[in-house]
């Protein structure tokens, strides 16, 4: 085993049954070269303090459970390594901009509602019945949306987005990127249904292109691009709707 060193992990603590407000608690954690921040937290829970609460599951950066703030940076704790911070202490906090349920666990119900609001499923055009055959889609057509289909719903983008922090009515990066994922799919014909979400004040217009959502995304989804391309789409829709035949809004 590689050499063991010690690092101080300072965690935000909040217990809804006993605490009026959050506070910080520090733990000294022995760590090895390959230990992640998540493994540091697990060490604390297993050996030092069983009350420390956080979410985790796959520990390989695909389930999206373990997002948190490390020194004000939204990260997946499973792929953030203690060696990169030593000898300084690190501060671990719950994802910014979300209500804190307990310690590092945030309340994600608002996000889930937003995810549901964008019609995140294929809406085929009526009369298009592929029967029991797979539809055709060329690799290039797959590429049009595949990048936006990589979102693991880890919420780091929301924690990086000050617009969401300032106004949580904003639909936000991940949900809008997912909306764009289906719009960009050659098999989909549901753009019109999703346009309402895009066009709303809390749709793409809640974004001021801070751009941090794309910077912190561990899966390179680039929500900022999805949102800002749809500003053009929304603008076109705004001005061209008068030219459209009646009955189509």
């Amino acid at each position: 085993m590689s050499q063991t060193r010690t690092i101080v992990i300072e965690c935000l603590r909040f217990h809804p049954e006993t605490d009026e407000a959050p506070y910080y608690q520090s733990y000294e954690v022995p760590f090895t070269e390959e230990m992640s921040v998540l493994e540091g937290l697990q060490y604390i829970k297993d050996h030092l303090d069983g009350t420390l609460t956080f979410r985790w599951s796959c520990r390989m950066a695909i389930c999206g459970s373990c997002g948190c703030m490390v020194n004000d940076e939204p990260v997946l704790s499973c792929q953030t390594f203690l060696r990169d911070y030593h000898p300084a202490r690190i501060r671990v906090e719950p994802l910014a901009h979300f209500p804190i349920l307990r310690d590092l666990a945030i309340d994600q119900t608002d996000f889930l509602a937003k995810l549901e609001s964008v019609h995140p499923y294929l809406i085929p055009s009526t009369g298009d019945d592929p029967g029991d055959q797979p539809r055709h889609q060329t690799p290039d057509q797959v590429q049009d949306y595949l990048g936006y289909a990589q979102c693991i719903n880890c919420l780091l983008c929301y924690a990086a987005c000050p617009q969401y922090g300032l106004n949580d009515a904003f639909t936000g990066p991940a949900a809008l990127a997912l909306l764009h994922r289906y719009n960009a799919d050659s098999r989909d014909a549901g753009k019109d249904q999703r346009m309402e979400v895009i066009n709303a004040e809390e749709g793409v217009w809640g974004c001021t292109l801070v751009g941090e959502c794309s910077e912190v995304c561990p899966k390179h989804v680039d929500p900022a691009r999805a949102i800002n391309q749809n500003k053009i789409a929304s603008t076109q829709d705004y001005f061209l709707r008068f030219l459209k035949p009646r009955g189509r809004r």
Partner: protein
Amino acid sequence: MDAIESDLVIIGGGGAGLRAAIAAAESDPGLSIALVSKVVPMRSHTVAAEGGAAGVIHPDDTLDKHFEDTVSGGDWLCEQDVVEYFIGQCTRELTQLEHWGCPWSRQDDGNINVRYFGGMKSPRTWFAADKTGFHILHTLFQASLKYPSIRRFDEFFCTDLLVEDGRVQGVLAFNIATGESVLLRCKAVILATGGASRVFGQNTNAGIVTGEGMGMAYAQGVPLRDMEFVQWHPTALPGSGILITEGARGEGGILLNKDGYRYLQDYGMGPLDPWPRPRAMELGPRDRVSQAFWHEDQAGRTVNTPNGSAVHLDLRHLGEKKIMERLPMIRELALTFAATDPVDSPIPVRPAVHYTMGGVPCDANGATPLQGLFAAGECASVGIHGANRLGSNSLAELLVFGRAAGESAARLARESTTAPANLEAQANEAEARHLKMLDTTEGERVAAIRAEMHDIMESGVGIVRDAERMGQACERLSALRERYRRGVKLDDRGRCFNTEWLTAIELGHTLQVAEAMAHSALARKESRGAHLRQDGFDKRDDENFLCHSMAWHQGDGPPRIDHAPVTITRSSPRERIYGRDSQPEQPAREE
């Protein structure tokens, strides 16, 4: 205690649970469906599956080949009638996912692309790069949002099945955020809680894969079937256990020992040439490839890493372009967790526990021996994996049997006319038992008991087994369960989001599942599939052991093991041959 009425309760929001929920909702929109999961559905472990899902679509492939590969891969311990049903449904289900939007990888002409996996006669694995499980799970979750009759209970932890008059009629769950209990009344329950690989220390699985679904059924007198058959995936990162997909070998990756020698040719999977070809060398089945590692390790021909011995998975000859197209996540995982770029150097890998072949026995409709209880996915033992699962069959299983269980449970719920039973007393008793744990001040930490369980299973019920070590494991597990009963000391006494407490409840189930595994293994005096013995039982014994193991819960004592027959329809047991028999005239990969 709050009580919530629904027609159907599905425990687990992974691939099987979601597919079941959609199937139930589609078969009867009037049915109320509660989808209860201890994590938000897209966090479920299906998300981590990489390589792909099996379905016959390639022009060279046939249903017969899929049948043969599955049954011989399972060392003839498969329920052949169920396999027959399964292979007939796979392609339809994968196509259904395509219609829901799953981004399957395509050929240039826009058709579905398929790749080889271990033990396959023809390319059969549908894939979405190397994030197939991720895409399947998110597609299912997002598609499930269309159905208003599916009511989700995200982050609710189920602890007990409530059985009255010999039927399951409810579930006790705790809302994790508040710690409040809730009684979920229903006419049918589908268990879709996943496997139990976290029984072992070195595993490829997420932290949530703890087997409590199996434990809940087991505690109600449902036997656990074939629990000794635990799959080691041959290629995981040493230390972390992070999975490197079999797809890496399907795309042409090779395994090398410390001398740079492709050692699989020495273990009945050669000869080396011609290469590539199906069902040979690195495209052998997982049990054989993992067992070969064990022998190489014993012979001292493995590479030493800071996290134990390993062999090399070499992808360099695929080139950066193909790696980025077919295996982008593998490259990222290797870079992040092993500081290795597979474009430039081989990835160190070793076997780690990956899959629980056994589980809650059920028929092709998902119906278990307990009235009203259905099972689907890894927690179920529907009978298609036998003694060794073929890669790509489990993602297809989630869909095929998720749907079957959803539809049959919906039918049962619709037709059920029995008046709701009075479950309050039972629920209150169970709740009190769990709440009592919050008052325990004496005892051992959760982590200490869990670590000991890992040690027992790794050393006693590993890749290669013998009576002495399995016997010790059984005794130690019995003692460990006794220690658990005496008390687990919790730091956390609150109700809100108390994961320490819930982990302790979970551990009670996991320990019983571990015990079922160890005792089933000890009772199987032969070698078959993933169960390999060294103590004179190193051959398959069809005369005495062409049968399922059944572990029966016996309260605080060790389980009772007996055996049940296997359904054989058209493939009688033969010698299981890889390598030399495998169609050398046919190239394994197409460029």
